[in-house]
């Protein structure tokens, strides 16, 4: 990789005439966001944060900020923020009976209970739960294996339906950590750089990046490209503002994506719109793929997806290889993961990007390199303990790809005590009882209530902490600690940024500081002494010291540039080719086959859908969930006044025709119900959804409501994850129907 930076940049710390200190830094979490690292200037007077502005010198964000960073002060100084450790008697779980304690007291308690539990039930009886890609995730595996010494690190989303399917396809077909469309993130001047080639099209599939900025993609880069002429091709069951600016929008039925992707392969292959040279030189299994997609005709897909056939032909032809070299880039979202057919869907899309010849070329789809953080290395645990990780026997893809438990089998272990009893929980920046990652959160709640001992790290009191924890440790915001943030953990073109500590609040520690602290307290063989030491080690793989990074604040990282497969920059052994057994893009995947799956992509309907005869009568509508909002990051920000003002209520989008039939008006409270749960949200009557679809918000709980059990800040009231069944997942263990559920809706 090669890093570039601005030698002439302003000093990291400057003092204004009136004594105000201005600190240049990059953002991460908490408050939460993915690893994007937007440029920030923090204004500090007498140790107090007085103002937040964007940093015009940041090569990517150039001073622009979203409302969440702009509202930072309200977060930092919120009266409800947790700023010192607290403990609670185990018999009072669920009650607001918290007592302040010191870090020493909290640590002593944690050390004692962890040792007892390990002694009696084994280290495997302890599970560390993480959420999505906040800063905590960067250190969570190390915390689990090096500090606590457990083999069980759990991300509680059913079917690992965030990254599971995508990671499977990207790793198995290419040996790449992640794919992203080329927005020039690796070039010093990004989309204004003379070396930047504008994509002709961006294929935006199951994604709305303006609000989500997922996994390191600064969403508004897409707007810059569109202003310069890039045309947007969107696949999404919902219309949104972006689709009104798109060249084509295929408004498919939820979870029929796999059918469309196979039909697109059918089109480019049968019409000869493939890059024959690339296929010949770099692909494996093309003839087999060609044979497989014959049956997946556009006519068949049109019927499946509920769209016009000619739309599919038009889209396929735009994505085909053309000798004029007009590239297109692939931008695929979490909706492709939240689908039991997801592993096959993404397999098809990766294959499409490959055979049309725009893989790792300027303006095309950039192939990622390994993520730069400790996700699977350095575990000091003996192999027999490591192999006790829940779900590894049933779903062998886990140790290959992700090194965590299987989420659904974790719930079953919690409930049944098999394969072994679980006794301790550590919630590491996750609010899994709220409608975020877990499916059937009430079941998780009931099972987790029985834990012997529960630790949580959090910034605010949440339903999860209130219901379950015995001790809670306060975490510092990104303005309050040193750290590092890299675009999608350094696997994609983008930035490497420093978090530069500017202020201090209470007794909070950063996720990294907490990892070091508990590592030293819990593990006599712990090798790290300070957070600074760990950061220096972190930077070794990047090629810059933390001190230099801190002073320069942000670097541009090209991850090695384009055509990496031709230059030996993808494979671990440094050889030319892709990171697969054959060295080629495995359209016929040996990896899938080794895991007992079909090596070629196929289509499968989601099982429990509204169209099924036994459900259609009672539950005629389809429910999708989780469309994002600017004002919040999953379940965060509910208590931040300026942000809550932007989006005060959980909204469910209902088509005007459907609303009229149901006697529902905009703003009405409505019930959304299905065999697994019943909730209430506020109707937004809007023609974004198909008439047979409703789109409900995720992540809602109400900090202003009664904190204690059974209310838990009203966490069950709008908890759409209650409507998602347990373990309706794909064959390899990945992909659950978060975005495709049967339901009925009626006025409350």
């Amino acid at each position, binding site marked *: 990789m090669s890093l570039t930076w601005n030698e002439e940049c302003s000093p990291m710390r400057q003092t204004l005439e009136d004594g105000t200190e201005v600190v240049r830094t990059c953002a991460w979490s908490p408050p939460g966001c993915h690893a994007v690292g937007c440029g920030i200037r923090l204004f500090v007077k007498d140790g107090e944060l007085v103002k937040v502005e964007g940093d015009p010198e940041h090569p990517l964000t150039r001073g*622009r900020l979203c409302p969440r960073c*702009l509202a930072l002060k309200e977060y930092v100084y919120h009266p409800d923020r947790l700023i010192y450790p607290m403990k609670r008697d185990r018999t009072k779980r669920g009650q607001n009976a918290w007592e302040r304690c010191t870090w020493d007291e909290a640590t002593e308690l944690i050390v004692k209970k962890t040792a007892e539990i390990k002694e009696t039930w084994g280290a495997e009886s302890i599970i560390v739960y993480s959420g999505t890609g906040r800063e905590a995730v960067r250190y969570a595996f190390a915390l689990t294996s090096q500090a606590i010494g457990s083999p069980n690190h759990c991300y509680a989303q059913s079917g690992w339906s965030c990254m599971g399917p995508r990671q499977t396809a990207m790793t198995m077909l290419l040996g790449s950590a992640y794919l992203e469309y080329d927005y020039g993130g690796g070039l010093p001047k990004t989309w204004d750089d003379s070396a930047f080639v504008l994509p002709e099209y961006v294929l935006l599939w199951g994604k709305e990046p303006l609000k989500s900025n997922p996994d390191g993609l600064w969403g*508004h880069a897409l707007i*810059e490209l*569109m202003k310069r002429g890039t045309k947007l091709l969107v696949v999404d069951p919902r219309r949104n503002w972006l689709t*009104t600016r798109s060249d084509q929008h295929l408004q498919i039925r939820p979870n029929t994506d796999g059918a469309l992707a196979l039909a697109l392969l059918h089109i480019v292959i049968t019409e000869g719109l493939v890059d024959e040279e690339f296929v010949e030189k770099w692909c494996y299994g093309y003839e087999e793929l060609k044979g497989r997609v014959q049956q997946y005709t556009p006519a068949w897909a049109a019927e499946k997806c509920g769209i016009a056939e000619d739309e599919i032909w038009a889209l396929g032809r735009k994505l085909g290889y053309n000798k004029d070299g007009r590239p297109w880039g692939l931008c695929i979202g979490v909706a492709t993961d939240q689908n039991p057919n997801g592993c096959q869907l993404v397999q098809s899309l990766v294959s499409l990007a490959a055979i049309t010849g725009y893989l790792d070329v300027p303006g095309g789809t950039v192939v990622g390199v390994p993520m730069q953080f400790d996700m699977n290395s350095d575990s000091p645990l003996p192999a027999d303990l490591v192999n006790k990780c829940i779900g590894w026997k049933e779903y062998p893809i886990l140790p290959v790809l992700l090194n965590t438990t299987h989420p659904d089998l974790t719930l079953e272990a919690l409930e049944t005590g098999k394969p072994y009893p679980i006794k301790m929980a550590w919630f590491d920046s996750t609010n899994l009882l709220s409608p975020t990652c877990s499916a059937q959160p009430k079941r998780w709640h009931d099972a987790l209530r029985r834990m012997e001992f529960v630790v949580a790290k959090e910034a605010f009191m949440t339903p999860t902490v209130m219901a379950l924890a015995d001790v809670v440790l306060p975490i510092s915001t990104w303005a309050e600690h040193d750290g590092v943030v890299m675009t999608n953990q350094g696997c994609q073109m983008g930035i490497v940024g420093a978090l530069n500590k500017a202020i201090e609040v209470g007794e909070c520690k950063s996720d990294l500081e907490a990892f070091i602290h508990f590592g030293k307290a819990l593990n006599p063989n712990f090798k790290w002494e300070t957070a600074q030491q760990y950061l220096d080690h972190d930077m070794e793989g990047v090629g810059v010291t933390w001190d230099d990074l801190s002073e320069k604040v942000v670097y541009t990282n090209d991850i090695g540039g384009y055509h990496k497969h031709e230059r030996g920059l993808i494979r671990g052994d440094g050889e030319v080719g892709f990171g697969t057994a054959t060295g080629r893009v495995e359209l016929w995947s040996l990896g899938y086959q080794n895991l007992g799956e079909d090596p070629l992509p196929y289509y499968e309907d989601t099982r429990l859908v509204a169209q099924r005869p036994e459900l259609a009568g009672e539950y005629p509508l389809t429910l999708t969930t989780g469309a994002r909002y600017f004002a919040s990051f999953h379940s965060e920000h509910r208590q931040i006044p*300026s942000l809550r003002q*932007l989006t005060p209520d959980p909204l469910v989008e209902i088509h005007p025709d459907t609303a009229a039939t149901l006697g529902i008006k905009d703003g009405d409270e409505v019930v959304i119900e299905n065999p697994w749960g019943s909730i209430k949200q506020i109707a937004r009557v809007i*023609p974004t959804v198909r008439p047979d679809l409703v789109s409900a918000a995720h992540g809602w709980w109400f900090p202003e409501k009664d904190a204690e059990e059974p209310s838990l800040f009203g966490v069950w009231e709008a908890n759409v994850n209650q409507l998602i069944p347990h373990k309706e997942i794909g064959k390899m263990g990945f992909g659950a129907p978060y975005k495709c559920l049967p339901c009925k809706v009626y006025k409350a």
Partner: protein
Amino acid sequence: MSVNGLLIDYEWCTGCQSCELACKNEHGFPMNKWGIKMVEFGPFEMEPGTLEWNYMAVPTSYCDLCEDRVARGEQPTCVLHCLANVIEYGPVEELALKMAAKGKRVSMYVP
């Protein structure tokens, strides 16, 4: 002395409302006061299958075009923080030329 204004390219305003918060931060406006506010126009299905849907940032009577910032040589805060970079500040004659050059979906405000 030239009259200055704000050029808003509403083809690309994504409705993020960062301008609202940046303005409040800069001028210390409380919860119920704005110097600029995002307005949602639509979505209207005037033609079956297409949606007319625009977001617009509109300065209020509280907007002073960030006099102090401009005097310091900085951009108005909404201009700096706009995620889609659709707000431009300058003399109206210059902005009018840009409006004409763009030719569609652009408005200019003198607050």
